[in-house]
């Protein structure tokens, strides 16, 4: 099962954090810091797997991460997940974001935090992989976007 999904930038600023297990607020922040510390000091061309730090569960858990330009995408998973499978799941996630935001960048994640969370919710539910099919995820996400757009349109009409 996936324990946590973290996205932070090259400076360690969190851009998205989703925990599927309960930690206290403080621990969550510590986990983000520790994970950043572990991940950021790794070179570009070494493997994408890492034994978990002390906080997020010790040797049972693993960090699987990918680095895209300014952002790190880190999935913390337990031993029941396939390493390479998760690695590609991150890829699916990023590609989906790219399609939804048309060339996604760090700012999109900040300004549309809720949308990113909703997209993530279509992929991973309660720590389990729900959907890996990109087009399906996009369909679900767009259904919501449409609602939002129609609302904006209605608001504009009213204001006219």
């Amino acid at each position, binding site marked *: 099962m996936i324990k946590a999904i973290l996205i932070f930038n090259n400076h360690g600023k969190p851009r998205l954090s989703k925990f599927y297990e309960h930690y206290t*607020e403080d621990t*969550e922040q510590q986990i983000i810091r520790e994970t950043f510390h572990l991940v950021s000091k790794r070179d570009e061309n070494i493997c994408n797997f890492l034994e978990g730090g002390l906080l997020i569960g010790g040797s049972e858990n693993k960090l699987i991460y990918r680095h895209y330009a300014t952002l790190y995408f880190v999935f913390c998973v337990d031993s029941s997940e396939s390493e390479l499978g998760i*690695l*590609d799941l991150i890829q699916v996630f990023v590609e989906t974001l790219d399609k939804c935001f048309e060339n996604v960048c760090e700012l999109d994640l900040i300004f549309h935090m809720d949308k990113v969370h909703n997209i993530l919710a279509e992929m991973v539910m309660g720590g389990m992989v*729900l959907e*890996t099919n990109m087009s399906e995820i996009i369909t679900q996400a767009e259904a919501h976007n449409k*609602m939002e757009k129609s609302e904006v349109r209605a608001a504009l009409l009213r204001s006219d």
Partner: protein
Amino acid sequence: MSDVVEKTLTALPGLFESQTGAAKITNRLRQLIKSITELTSKHEEENLIKRELSAIKEQVSSPNTTMKQMREIMVRAMYCEMLGYDASFTYIHAIKLAQQGGVLEKRVGYLAVSLFLNEGHELLLLLVNTVLKDLQSTNLIEVCMALTVVAQVFPKDMIPAVLPLVEDKLSHPKEIIRRKAVLALYKFYLIAPNQVQHIHAKFCKALSDKDPGVMASSLHIYLQLIRESPDSYKDLTGSFVTILKQVLGGKLPVDFNYHSVPAPWLQIQLLRILSLLGKEDQSTSELMYEVLDESLRRAEMNHNITYAILYECVKAVYTIHPKAELLEKAARCIGNFVLSPKINLKYLGLKALTYVVQHDAKLALQHQMTIIECLDHSDFTIKRETLELLFRITNAQNVTVIVEKMLDFLRSCNDEHTIIHLIGKVAELAEKFAPDNSWFIQTMNDVFSIGGDLLQQDVPNNFLRLLAEGSESKEEDDQLRLYAVESYLTVLKGHTSHLPQCFLQVMSWVLGEYAHLQESVDRREVIRLLTQLLDQRSVSSETRVWILSALTKIPEGQTDLILDLAESLSSSQDTVLRQQAQELRHLSQDSQLREWVLPRGAPWDGIEVDSSLSFLDGFVSEALAAGAAPYKPPHQRQEELCEDRALNLEPYSFSLPVSLSSCSITDRQSPTLLSVSSGLSGNSAELSQKAGSSTLILEGVKRVWGKDGYLPQKEATAPPVDEPSAAVQPASQQEAAERIEPRPEPSTQNQDKQQLASSLFVGLGVGSSVSLLGKSEAPPPRFRKKPRPHESSSSSGTSKRSSDSSSHSSRNTTDSFLYGSFPEEEPATSISTFDHTPKSTTANGLSQNKDTKEDRHANTSQILGGDMVIVRPSTIQDKHPPSVSSDLTALLPADLKDLPHSDVISLTSDPSLSLSSCRLFRDEALLLVIFISNCTETVIKDVAVQLTCEELKTASLRGNVMDCLEARSTSVCHYALLMDDPHTNVSLTGTVSYQTQPGHTNTLPFSGTLSTADFIRPLVVTTEEYGKLWLSLSHDVKQNLKLLTDAGDPLRTTLNALKDALQLHVVDIIGSEGIVACRLLSGAPCLLHCRVNGAALAMWLRSPHPALPDFILYHCQRALAHH
């Protein structure tokens, strides 16, 4: 992909301009983020967020804030929370938003709730109704949101409220809803397994859903279920194989392809399930050979994800029952992984090798050069994984090289987690395979100085115990000790300020105990070195206690030094130190007292330990008389704080008088104990007790309190030593040094690598491949320490995995049914009335059950005459002599025949019918089999058995209603009974109704008792697992039991008696201690730790269930009393 996120914060201004319309909504958020990104210091950020939060606070409480604004506010609050600031005042508004908003607001509200709150948060209760409403909504999006939030955060107690609705969703026309419902149910299963037990059939339906997505999500559940009990799902193997075949054959819609690989994640999931099912099961494995072969073949190496599938495939092939052809292919795959230039694949290759090397050591040999390259790899993860692999292939021949590699790695490593993990392994290897003393001590020195205070406490404890208890050969022991002393003196002469406390403690203890072995060293020197340590600021007060204790043991005739020391410490701030200094002074002045306290000749084994502290009884009773509160163990105190219920420690009259439990010694009631306990300070005693690891320290404790108060007495120290002649020592050391020398230095030179390879992989050849398969077959460990329970995985593992198999069959009839016979013929008109037929005797019989229990045991062979008219409910009848019983067991259905069972015992009978019963011990339930025999020459019609028992749950029943029972024939019906909450004994009652003539219904009542013992099953664990489990359990009970002393080995005899009477699993018996494990059917485990304590057996039980230890203890007492 990297160009995707090219845009950075520099693009910020442009982005603002490009936004229109919707921009207004999130204006505030924009501003917030903009200002945050402009900040330079953490302090400024803090101020800004504080301002932001107070603005939010104002807005949320304003009545004019619209829902839409609220939505935006919530996103801002989420942002603040993500940065780690507390926005808890918005939680309630998040819930309101989810309750009252339209779809869009609801979405943000639910999202905020799932980010802010955890399962236990009280505010969640407010959400339950909203979730219920949304689950019933016709809007699909609302249903989806509700299911998502249910799977993310939902209070456990409220699951029953939503369960039926979520269940309904399993048959929803939209597959996305079905899929989410399946996952929500899986989540429920994880947090409250018994609440979803009844819907297993629906899971099965989900598995065969026409939508592959729904089927895929149901695999989550099956993976979990099969992991828990693979045996129950063997019949599904065929289905999983078929699914995998279809996936491989491209039968799924193209949508499911990922990089033209059909449904890779689904394949991975299926392969995992198959490997679990095929593990150690040849016939099941045979079903999947073909599909695994196809899977290996189809996964062409072209993309990352195919490697993921291959990796799972390889693991599956090595997990299931082996097939040569597949193994060969899998081995080739591993080779491809290991040799791959892609670093991720290399990592997985190493992982696969680590896994496989247990089955096939030769594979490691094939890749030795790659492995050696990986050792010098720049990637930390790869290095670490390589060491893990080397750890698995360590044997006596390559241990020096491998340990050296591990230590090298550790020296350059600064990740705490890795250090703790690996250093323990080094210690384990050193203990197991050490080629000689000097190497061992040197390695342990490294372990202590690198691991330092991160070390788990059992590493130093094990090491000291090994030194102290020694092996069979006294001479070898002394040499080891001697070497340790010398080595430590050298260490202490160097810089000591950087040494970890734990190392200092070990050194001071060893010096205290064994410094006298080394005659060439001046005692004054030893004292000087130790005293020096005391002066260092970095030395903790706990270590000071260790050092002082060591000093107490060393001096003989060095009174002046000691007196100086005692003088300087007598003004210490630390009371414990001050007291020790006092003792030190007294002892050094009074040599007679010293001799008495520290008799230098007493062997370790001869030390009598009164761990029950019975000598304190007088003191305790005086204190109690004076009004002191009785002692309660810490866990009990804690429990009483939590709830107003106390564990009853003396539940039954059977108990021997409870002596003070041994744990009181670790409780710092009397600080003096600390200082008394020789080199092993009280603190470490406490630690090791906590770790459940040993009673090492207790052994040092002798009489401390006497009638006159404190007896300044010390434990005996080392056994008398035949000091080895000085000439021998240097020789052995030299030899040792020589043996270390030829350690090859790693270098980039290929030749060196070859050399390294030959030293690393020595002993892995074809002939000796077994030596690393099972560590048990490794050459005998050098240090054969006296084994103990709770030991960490180290030590000679040969006898550890003693598996208990057939304790079932040897059960006798203790505590089984009670049989009253109620031969009443009470005509009843119809079957439907038999429930109402008053049976006064039934109650009577029951009330007597308990009383007659003991008698019955003595009288089992007593057979009453065949007079069927006896109407005495309490009479014990055993109408079937054993020969008849075995006849009846032949009637058992084929699937039950092989189960262990009790004797067949008559329940009741009347002229036409006789009832007997037999208990069958299935792993997950107790089967109560009732044999109904027709004693007449005519057919009996409409036979119906009804069984009631309030305390037990009937899981299933078979054959309790028969249309007709032929003359002189016997029919079998059986009940599967479950016991969720333990009871000492449970009574059951039942009736059989039948018709001998049409319209004339007879009823025959019966009753019986079942004991908890019937519901106990052995829990097969290894010593290591036992140790872990022990620590995790909270409820414990201690009691002294009778020890069966009539045989040669009292402990073994007693434990075997217990094992026979109750279905216990004896995990390990070591010396005077034994560990035993059992569980309540498939439920709560109970661990028993038994120690011979004089003429009694000190038993310590632990379980997660509060009442279970009491009941098991009760049955143990009974079993021993009957013996």
